[in-house]
């Protein structure tokens, strides 16, 4: 008896209808990610990488196939339950950081816990601890506009991890960073993975994908190889 797979996608489809034409962002993707794995998803622009990640994150509903995350069938969840899935089971890191500029860094990191119902003192303490672990203590009380790109992305990772998610999802997290900051960030992912964190990372950069345990490739909404 094995533990449930972190991610289990079967013939996953996501079709967009734009007018008369339809675009299949996902045209039958099958993917399994074991708990504790560090997997990179590679592929050219438009191949469906973001869509796949968004489906796993519960931000997007598939139009076909099945998707299980931590054993839970996401297609069976209503909006409320999907919100809980995003809040508890997955942590998402975006290329565009997506931090709220009007809150301090520590408040941004603590935000997911606010929606999960954690009290203010406890969630700020957790956020500070996490920022410390990521070497961001000095920046905790700053506004986001006072941070560099690399720091913003570290803060975003801290926010993604604050709820202890089963899987960390990152969509081109180094896309807005220079190569030095990008390399530092990848080092952080490796470190997190070494501490047992499951990571699914989307990139079109082979040097970054090289740091993952395993790389899957996509093209036109399908897995290749």
């Amino acid at each position, binding site marked *: 008896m094995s533990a449930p797979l972190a991610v289990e996608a079967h013939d996953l489809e996501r079709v967009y209808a734009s007018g008369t034409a339809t675009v299949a962002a996902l045209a039958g993707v099958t993917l399994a990610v074991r708990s504790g794995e560090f997997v990179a998803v590679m592929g050219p622009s438009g191949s469906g990488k973001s869509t796949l990640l968004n489906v796993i994150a519960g931000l997007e509903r598939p139009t076909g196939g099945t998707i299980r995350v931590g054993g839970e069938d996401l297609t069976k969840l209503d909006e409320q339950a999907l919100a809980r899935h995003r809040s508890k089971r997955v942590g*998402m890191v*975006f290329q565009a950081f997506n931090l709220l500029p009007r809150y301090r860094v520590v408040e941004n990191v603590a*935000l997911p816990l606010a929606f999960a119902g954690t009290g203010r003192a406890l969630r700020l303490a957790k956020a500070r601890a996490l920022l410390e672990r990521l070497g961001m203590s000095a920046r905790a009380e700053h506004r986001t506009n006072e941070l560099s790109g690399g720091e913003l992305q570290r803060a975003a990772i801290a926010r993604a991890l604050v709820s202890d998610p089963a899987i960390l999802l990152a969509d081109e997290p180094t896309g807005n960073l220079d190569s030095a900051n990008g390399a530092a960030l990848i080092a952080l992912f490796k470190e997190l993975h070494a501490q047992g964190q499951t990571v699914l990372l989307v990139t079109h950069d082979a040097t970054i994908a090289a740091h993952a345990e395993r790389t899957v490739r996509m093209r036109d909404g399908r897995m290749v190889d």
Partner: protein
Amino acid sequence: MRPSDLVAMSLGNYTRARLRSALTTAGVAIGTALVVLLIALATGAEDNVRRSIFSIGDLRLVSVQPFQPGASGLSAVPRTITDDTVSQFKRIAHVEGVFRQFDAPLGTVVEGGEDATIRPQGIEPGAPVDRGDLIAGRHLAAGDRAVAIVPGNIARLIAPSAGGAVGKRVTMRIGGAVKLGSTRIGGSGTPRDYAVTVVGVFDEQASQTSMRIPLEDALAAGAENRGLTPDALRQGTGYSGVAIEADDSQNVADIVKAVQELGFSSFSLKQVVEQIDQGFGVFRGILAGIGGVALLVAAIGIANTMVMSVLERTREIGIMKAVGAAPGDIRTLFLAEAAYVGVFGGVLGLALGVGGGQLIERIIRNLNPRANPAPIFVVGPDLALGALALALVVALVAGFLPARRAMRMSALTALRYE
């Protein structure tokens, strides 16, 4: 999401767009103030009218007139109130007392000269007219004969002070010509003089031209004036009126109906008050409607602000949803933001309405120091709470659609919004 976080977060949103929130709140405040001011005005007017009515008399009273029901003015058809009628009135349910009254012919208190023209009203002891309005002396008592309770203005014609008249023996001349103001009235029958002792003086606000004497005396004088016996007068002419006292003002309508069924017209303040209440209900409704239009405009302002707020924070909504905000959290956040507009606008508007009312009142009093001292604007606790609740409800209703829009927004679409 915890209520404390909800409050803090939405308050942050409310205070962030300071100017816009302030303007929207001002809109609600003005609308609320207008509603408060106008309803307070209507309430003040109604209170004022009610107070004057209550000062006229008791709501438990039904006064029966010697006319057929529906009688008014010239078309009135007389009907005689005899002792038989009186005993019928006494049998009506919820009747606590029946007091007969006979008005003797117009006359003069001789000691007061021509100015002391007076209508001697013959009443029974304890009659509603003879209650609680004494300046000096006492009310009519059982067994009294040849006594009078006179109004203050007449008493001061008899003695230097109203109180000084008590105990004085005066001559009451009944019938004959009298002078009322500048008019001379021909008068009825041969004038006759009666010696009466003033036992009480009542506040002339009740009446300046009538005095109270025992019923038997009035009947005797009236009979003599017409050359009849008092019994013939009772049977033929009948009493001038009867005051029926109900056990409770709730039962007045039933008594009025019973009196009508016996064939007599009646009058009760209670019914006047009911009509006034209805009239004021309409009046108040119209004024509230005018204020309501102002609130409606404010509501559109709130809706507009909220739509802007949702649009402006689209990305933020996307981020919140992406990190686990439930649809309900998002909706509640925006509704709470609208609620602040309602609460602050309501409180401000209430203060503005109350303060504005006091200011207007002070200005009116300064312009006309002799204006009726009763308050013009009356804000009771129900109006205050009602206004606050209304402002809140208006804000929530106005915020509902924008909040729902925020709730239903797709997280990914919102994240892509620039």
